[in-house]
């Protein structure tokens, strides 16, 4: 049972485009929603995170949009660059635990 569903599985955009990756969750007890970025041969690294009391968070070119009623959140990458080509994972956790439940990942390719 996949508690955090992520789409699309892969995404190709041109440089300067705005890729959007979507995630949906089931457990309403989740209260922390991070996005991790993973390059080949490396471990995931935290990109940006949001809590359900806000609907949007922006850090640099990365924006999370959060819809609590729909139990969905998404990552937008503004002015995407070839260096953004990586696998992106959404995740969720709840309460007094750091047990992150990861989505299935999105392989992003930004073409020059």
């Amino acid at each position: 049972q996949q508690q955090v569903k992520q789409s699309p599985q892969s995404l190709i955009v041109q440089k300067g485009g705005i890729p959007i990756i979507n995630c949906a969750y089931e457990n309403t007890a989740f209260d922390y929603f991070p996005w991790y970025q993973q390059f080949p041969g490396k471990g995931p690294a935290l990109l940006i995170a949001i809590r359900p009391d806000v609907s949007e968070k922006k850090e640099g070119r990365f924006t999370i949009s959060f819809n609590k009623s729909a139990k969905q959140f998404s990552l937008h990458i503004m002015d995407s660059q070839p260096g953004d080509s990586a696998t992106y994972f959404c995740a969720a956790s709840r309460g007094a635990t750091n047990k992150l439940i990861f989505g299935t990942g999105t392989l992003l390719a930004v073409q020059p």
Partner: protein
Amino acid sequence: DTAVSQTPKYLVTQMGNDKSIKCEQNLGHDTMYWYKQDSKKFLKIMFSYNNKELIINETVPNRFSPKSPDKAHLNLHINSLELGDSAVYFCASSQGTVNEKLFFGSGTQLSVL
């Protein structure tokens, strides 16, 4: 200086063998984790320790045994390796246990032949 380091980076072994993966963090964090990433890149938590105490133990075969000699180290020992154990194993650490940023190591690619 690598924040979370794990060794070895690659591990190739035969079915039935016992192997260990070591992890060390120099961030002064209290909590450490083991995650498994399968061939489809799915990441799943296996264990978590906070100040050497086991706090998360997912449904993992008891052939997998974590050991935390101190809060800077978390090792993973695997007995009687099976083909299905082939994956990338990531060690990670965080300052605390509540919605904290995870710092991941570079992974250990385990191949069981």
